[in-house]
């Protein structure tokens, strides 16, 4: 008798018709939408040859014992609730019942379809994901079953964070982590996602999506730790919508994956709405972090502040393309966009394309991008105190990230970010073998107009179109 797998459950006839028809529609969209092309503006500089979608299967059985998975799924801070998924299958959920007493929903997506259809019909992927990865958003919609629906009703404030762990726990596995946060009027919630592979060098496909829907006067803090295995292809798509006087803050910590595409969009639809968009990436080997952002100011008196920082070692690469869009009539918009890249190795690469589209006069918008190497005077100063150049360079990189981490109001989550960065640095290269030589500083300005097409690296691999289409079926 065949074992009952979640994918069988997902594809079974037991699912409600409305959900099934949405999935069918998503599959159609996935088939119709073209694959990214090198010439696409939304994929500029991306090594699209590295995006490999073939050979992955959803819902493969995991190899790690449950107890071990749960032991690895311990956040370094106290939480109000925890959900653990491996290969998109629910391993454990805790804290949901206690939260329910306050009217808070913390429900795995698979069961939320039956328990909270109204919420999902209204909010599930209801807002645009349109920064290039539409095809992958459709792929996500066709497959999403893991992850949680979080609904915090009006006037409920939660102090401790709600966390989810998503593990890739087998070779050739595709996962589709989903986090949907709906915060009612004056509600307050912190949510943290931990994405990881049980094999730190493992591969797989991760196509995740998180939406932050912030009601009037509500506050949502979201942090995502992306620590997939270093051979994973990852998509992490976000759409944030903030209503009047609401506040959203998101931080995407990118440490894992071979290629990680992260799209984040904030739409400010009510006066006094605020969104703070933060990013922190540490790259090594040939990792590529592909970041696309949009700050949409639809109405007057809204504020957004984006700060994405990348530290890149070896031949790793980051791409940042950001846009502030101020709608006609959206006066008194206050918007910032800042991308800063630190090259720990001269062979690392950072491409930055900041942008503004302002259809109103009475606004304050600034954007900027800088790419530089380790400051040699600073490094010398650290060395003159006995600190070896590699540790010194890492210390300077910590300092570089502090501006981002300092923005998190929850100091314990901030400490967890520092620890994750430290862990990544420790794993990067064996101590003592590194060579960060003292050299003349060379600062490279990276502006859209000055950005050059990078040299084509490695062999150009054709995407297996048939396998890709088969995946969505």
């Amino acid at each position: 008798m065949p074992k009952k797998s979640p994918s069988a459950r997902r594809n079974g006839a037991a699912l409600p018709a409305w959900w099934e028809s949405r999935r069918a529609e998503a599959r159609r969209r996935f088939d119709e939408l073209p694959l990214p092309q090198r010439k696409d503006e939304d994929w500029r500089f991306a090594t699209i040859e590295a995006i490999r979608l073939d050979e992955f299967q959803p819902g493969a059985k995991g190899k790690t014992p449950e107890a071990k998975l749960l032991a690895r799924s311990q956040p370094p801070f106290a939480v109000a609730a925890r959900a653990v998924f491996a290969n998109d299958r629910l391993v454990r959920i805790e804290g949901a019942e206690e939260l329910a007493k306050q009217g808070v929903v913390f429900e795995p997506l698979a069961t939320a379809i039956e328990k909270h259809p109204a919420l999902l019909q209204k909010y599930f992927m209801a807002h645009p994901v349109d920064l290039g990865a539409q095809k992958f958003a459709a792929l996500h919609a066709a497959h999403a079953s893991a992850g949680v629906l979080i609904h915090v009703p009006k006037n409920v404030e939660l102090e401790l964070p709600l966390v989810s762990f998503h593990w890739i726990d087998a070779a050739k596995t595709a996962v589709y982590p989903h986090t949907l946060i709906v915060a009612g009027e004056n509600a307050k919630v912190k949510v943290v996602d931990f994405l990881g592979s049980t094999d730190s060098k493992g591969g797989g496909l991760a196509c995740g999506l998180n939406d932050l829907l912030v009601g009037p006067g509500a506050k949502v803090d979201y942090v995502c730790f992306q620590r997939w295995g270093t051979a994973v292809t990852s998509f992490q798509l976000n759409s944030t919508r903030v209503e009047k006087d609401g506040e959203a803050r998101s931080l995407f910590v990118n440490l894992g994956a071979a290629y990680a595409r992260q799209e984040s969009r904030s739409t400010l639809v009510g006066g006094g709405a605020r969104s703070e968009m933060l990013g922190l990436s540490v790259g090594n080997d040939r990792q590529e972090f592909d970041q696309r952002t949009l700050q949409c100011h639809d109405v007057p008196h809204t504020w957004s502040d984006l700060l994405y920082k990348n530290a890149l070692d070896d031949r790793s690469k980051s791409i940042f393309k950001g846009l502030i869009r101020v709608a006609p009539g959206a006066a008194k918009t206050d918007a910032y966009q800042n991308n800063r890249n630190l090259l720990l190795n001269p062979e690392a690469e950072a491409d930055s394309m900041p942008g503004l589209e302002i259809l109103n006069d009475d606004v304050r918008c600034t954007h900027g991008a800088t790419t530089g190497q380790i400051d040699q005077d600073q490094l010398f100063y650290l060395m003159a105190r006995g600190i070896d150049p590699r540790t010194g360079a890492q210390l300077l990189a910590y300092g570089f990230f502090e501006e981002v981490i300092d923005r998190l109001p929850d100091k314990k989550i901030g400490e967890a970010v520092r620890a994750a960065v430290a862990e990544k640095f420790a794993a990067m290269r064996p101590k003592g073998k590194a060579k960060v030589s003292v050299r003349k500083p060379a600062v490279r300005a990276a502006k859209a107009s000055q950005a050059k097409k990078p040299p084509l690296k490695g062999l150009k691999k054709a995407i297996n179109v048939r396998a890709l289409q088969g995946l969505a079926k």
Partner: protein
Amino acid sequence: MKNTLEIKNLRAGIGGTEILHSLNLTVPKGQVHAIMGKNGSGKSTLAKVMSGHPDYEVTGGDVLLDGESILGLEPDVRARAGLFMAFQYPSEIPGVTIANFLRAALNARRPEGEEVDAVEFYHHLYAKMDLLKIDRSFTSRAVNDGFSGGEKKRNEILQMAMLEPKYAVLDETDSGLDIDALKIVSHGVNSLRGPKLGILVITHYQRLLDYIVPDVVHVMVGGQIVKSGPKELALELEKKGYDWVEKDLVAA
């Protein structure tokens, strides 16, 4: 030679121009030596060369720490060997707190896995900070970031106190300090004086030597030590000016 910092026939410069011409100097442990000299005499070049700054090249001679040459060593290895440089213009390091910086520097001196104990570290750090009249809130401030001139120099001496070097070179530590700050810094340096530490004070002004009283004063002119003598030499130099030594040189 054991228990000495020796500079022997040192020739060094920058960008192909020799600035130090066969410079000789010996600082024994337990003593404070001062180098006085005009701008352009090569004082700061000497400090940079000793610390191993990559912009400077050594063309001859040697620098020996307890009899071992340090010129072939990277700056961090020299520091761990026991040489400390208090810089004239300390770097600002945004985002790195003084506490983290000092811990990294102390851990660099210990074998892996034997990192400094946090409680012990703060106990030690606070004691040194109190001595230097540095507010304890400084530990969580980024290194020199937004510090006043006086704060930066006090921070240099704090590092010296924490790292317990065998030899310390103070490069124009008095520059940019008012009298109050000068007194505090000098008090800090004086409290570190002892048989285990040799100090070389580099200064343009005699004023500092009223507070850090040297055992020996050296006068530097044109990349060489041209005159050495007891502490009274500094006063004589102050009274007669550097021209006096230079004329003396010409006469000799």
